Structures are given as C-alpha cells and as structure tokens.
C-alpha cells in the first residue's frame, strides 16, 4: 500500500497540536516510560570472581590485596570470593557465566543473581564498587 504524504502530514500536525503551545513538546498523554530501576540487593551478598588461576592478572592480584576495598565490602556484609574455574565450586559458576572467564557474579544469599559479566583486561576495585553501587551497596 502506498502512503499518501498528505495523510502523514496531517498526522504529524495533529501530533504536535496535542503538545505545548510551541508544538515542540511531546504530548503528556504519551509519557516516556521510566527506565527500570535495578533491584536493591538487601542483606548478605556475595561478590564472586571466577578466574583461570594460571592466567591471573595483575589487576585481580591487586584487588585481592586491596585492604581498603576488602574491609569496606566486608563491613557491608558483602563477601568476596575468588575461585578457579577448574575446581569446585568455580566450574559451576563458570557455567553460570557462560564460560566468560575471568568473570564476576553478584548474588544474594539465596542465590539470586543481580549482576554478572566478564572482567575487563585492566581494572581496579573501583570496577566492583561500581557494580555494587548499582544495587545500593
């Protein structure tokens, strides 16, 4: 079916006329839906890193020895764990990550996954702080 340009023009004019006086604002009757807010992670949480130990990066080695970060999350009842993807339970978590190792999972104590993903090649504990902040931690 061929679209008549006059019909299209009429529709556009009608659309703008429903908005503000200057005709630039979208009409209130068609609000933009708000972006979904991530769930807040309440209570005990686990920040799990799965690595191939034999390919450990300097970044992960530093995070494991970043006392300020480790103390801060421990105070907030977030428990940090590093597992090798060849052992247990690391291989199970590696499957959950779809094999994207090194990767991380943020879960609650019931096992609900709030965030997961691959780790960048270079990172600091600020990367994990960002993930935690997204869920109110």
């Amino acid at each position: 079916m061929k679209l008549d340009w006059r019909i299209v023009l009429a529709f556009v004019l009608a659309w703008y006329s429903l908005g503000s006086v200057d005709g630039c604002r979208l009409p209130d009757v068609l609000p933009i839906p708000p972006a979904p807010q991530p769930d807040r992670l309440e209570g005990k949480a686990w920040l799990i890193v799965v690595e191939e130990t034999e390919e450990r990066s300097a970044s992960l080695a530093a995070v494991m020895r970043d006392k300020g970060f480790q103390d801060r999350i421990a105070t907030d009842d977030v428990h940090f764990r590093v597992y090798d993807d060849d052992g247990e339970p690391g291989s199970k978590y590696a499957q959950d990550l779809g094999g994207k190792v090194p990767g991380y999972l943020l879960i609650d104590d019931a096992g609900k996954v709030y965030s997961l993903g691959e780790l960048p090649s270079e990172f600091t504990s600020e990367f994990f702080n960002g993930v935690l902040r997204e869920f109110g931690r």
Partner: protein
Amino acid sequence: MTKPGDIISTPPGELDQIVGPEGNLIKLGLTDEKIKASAVFAPLRTKYKLLSESEIKASVTRSDRNKAREIWGPDRIKDQDGIGACQGYASAAAIEKARELGGQEHIELSGDFAYSLVNDGRDQGSGLAEGFQAASQHGYAPASTPGLKRWEYRKSRMPQAAFEAAKRFRGFEGFYAETEQELYTGLALGMVGVIAVHVAGAYSQLDRYGVSRGGNGVGNHAVCVDDLVWDAALGKFKIDSPNSWKTSWGEQGRCYYLWDQHLRTTTKYHKFYLFPAATQDSQGNNPPTDLVMV
C-alpha cells in the same frame, strides 16, 4: 656467653640452634628434601607465563595493592618456640594466607600438626617437599582443635579430632619455583610461598632497609614469604617474610630477603613453593551454588 642471634653448632646429625631474641634456643629444622618436589607440584614456569622485570615492578607498585605488612599485622607472627618445626609453621602460614586472599575467613592452622606428619616422632627437622606431600594427604589442622597442644611435635600424640579437622584443609594448589623470575612472578601475582633461607652469621640483624644481614648457604630454615616489594632507594626487589620466632625478632617478627644475598645458594638445595589458591573449606561460610537468573 651467648647472646641473641648467635648460632650454636651441634655435632653432625643434630640440628644447629640459634639464640632467639629472648635468649631462648631455637632449632634450625629445615633438612634436605627426601623426595623430589615434582612428586608434589608442577614447576611454576610450565603453567604460568613468567613476567618480565618491568611487569613485575608494575604489578607490585600498583597504588591499589596493599603491602603484606598492611594486610597481616604483628598479631599474625607465629612462634615455633624452640622446636625445629619451621617447615610446619611456614607452610601453615602460607596456606592460611592463600585461603584469605581468596576471600575465606582467617583460621589459624597448626604448624605443630603439620610438622608432626613428617618428623617420625622426633624433633629432628623436616624437608619442604615431604611436608607438602603429607599436608596434601592429611591437611592442616586448625590450631583451635580440641586436644591439640602447642609445640607437641609427635604424631602419636595428636588427637584424632585433629586428623578429622585437617581433612577440611588439605586442598591447595601449589607450584614450585627454582629461579628468581619464577619466584617474583608468583609473588607479583599475589601468591604466598615458602622458601629456604640459611641462618648464619648476622642473620638476626637487619640493615636500614629491613634486610637480614645473613648470607647464603645450603639452607637450614624455612620461612613463609607473602610479598614482593620494590625498594626504590635500594634499587632492588625485596622479598617480605614473616618469620616464626615471635614479634620480638626482626621488625615485629619480619624481615626482607634479597635474591642475590640470601637465596641464590639455597635455591640450589631446596625448591621454593608458591600457592595461588586454597580449596574451599566445605564447612566454611560459602556462597550458594544453585543460582537463580532473573
């Protein structure tokens, strides 16, 4: 008249002793390895890409990486008292820290129990490889195990509860290192290790960089190593080591070693051991494994 730091030589077949900082005598209990290190672990170089000097320096000087002395304070310095249990104490310290770096809680492991597994019931020292072999079979008993007595070194006197409890702590991944680059790579990647040093001369005196004034030798003492530090003033890497002679020794129980000064000779007689991770304690505080994706 002896003074702290003096070495007391003994007849062949007996362990030399050092006068500890409080005048106590401490046996130097590291003996030759009776089995090959390869019977227990693989060499680090076959599993890891060894780092260059610049990569090692970049890793250990990162601003977000705390020094071992900031992570583990003087309260973590062990005390082997006078017995020749250095291997047991050093390896227990290393496995404790490997656990903690992976996020597991601190549980003090018994150096006495580890030593008892390999000394045939006599306080005659032990080698590193057989110590790790026995520990991988039996595990490390928590120091808090009921019935476990401090400085008891005889296996026959160990409570059955210690053998049961130790089963939870027998899983650890380890490698051995034979070169400076291997040892530094492991430490730069956050591993904790056990090395052989030679206690002689002014070993207990530290220079202004915190480095032991002792020298090279065949190796008669095992110590834990938990960090590699770049000392810009010295222009060298220093290996940080908590000893097991209480905090009154060294700098609150610690000192630094330099490869050329302390390890170049001992590594010809002993392998060094590195631990990137320890297996999860089945009875520990562990995360759920059945995950719910949303």
